[in-house]
């Protein structure tokens, strides 16, 4: 198997990865805030999770510590479970309200 280039450690500092994942995270954040379609909002949350995953993996590799990658594994587990349950909830809510527009889920307020 091709060995990972030590090159990447020398040419790209970990900071870059952290920045990249932060950027992705922020994009996800923005998406969560502005999008109205629940499914897309949910997808944006997935982006956020992936951003964290990316940081974990990069850090794990840079630190030569497998924990980060294991964590990513669990994150995916969690994400899968969340998606399953989340989509079930979305479907249920859709059945009741017949919409996925996030703005219309505002019966409970005040």
């Amino acid at each position, binding site marked *: *198997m091709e*060995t*990972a*280039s030590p090159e*990447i450690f020398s*040419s790209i500092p970990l*900071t*870059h990865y*952290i*920045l*990249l994942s*932060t*950027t*992705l995270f*922020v*994009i996800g*954040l*923005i*998406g969560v*805030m*502005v*999008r109205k379609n629940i*499914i*897309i909002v*949910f*997808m*944006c949350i*997935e*982006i956020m999770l*992936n951003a964290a*995953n990316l940081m974990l*993996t*990069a850090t*794990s590799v*840079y630190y*030569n*510590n*497998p*924990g980060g*990658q*294991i964590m990513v*594994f*669990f994150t*995916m*587990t*969690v*994400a*899968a*479970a*969340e*998606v*399953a*349950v989340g*989509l*079930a909830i*979305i*479907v*249920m809510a859709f059945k009741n309200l017949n919409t*996925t*527009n996030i703005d219309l889920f505002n019966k409970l307020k005040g």
Partner: protein
Amino acid sequence: MIDKVFYFLSIATVISATLVVVSKHPIKSVLFLVLTFFLISAHYVLLNAQFLAMVNIVVYAGAIMVLFLFVIMFLNLNKEIEQHKSLIPWFIAIISGGCFLLITMSALSKTELISSVEHSSSLGLVENLGNVLYKEYLLPMELSAVLFLIAMAGVVLLSRKEKIVDTK
């Protein structure tokens, strides 16, 4: 060379993720999201974390996104196109997102990260990770089973038709 690859991938990822957010059509969003996942997997590869790269594609792009697509189709949302009536949420979101980015950057700039001494190239391989996972991380591994049990039972519960049985 590799740094150029990194930058290319990074920019592509960011653009792709941005497109997820800005696309008006849900299907487009899903597709861009899949693209994003692929690009992230590429990053993993770059980082020599092949196992994760695989899992990422299989789980996310493969399973999760299919679920999403399925639900969109199931709920017949592919026609539904959002109307962006107001720019104010965008404004607030971008400002606060930018702030968050800045904060992380400045925190980062004040921090000296640990510099690791040596890098093992086999770190991200299945064998290695499997060892760690089943030895050191056995507990969370098992407990994640509980998580799935809950998710399973929950999904079954939520999608079951509600029926009323007379109390005895």
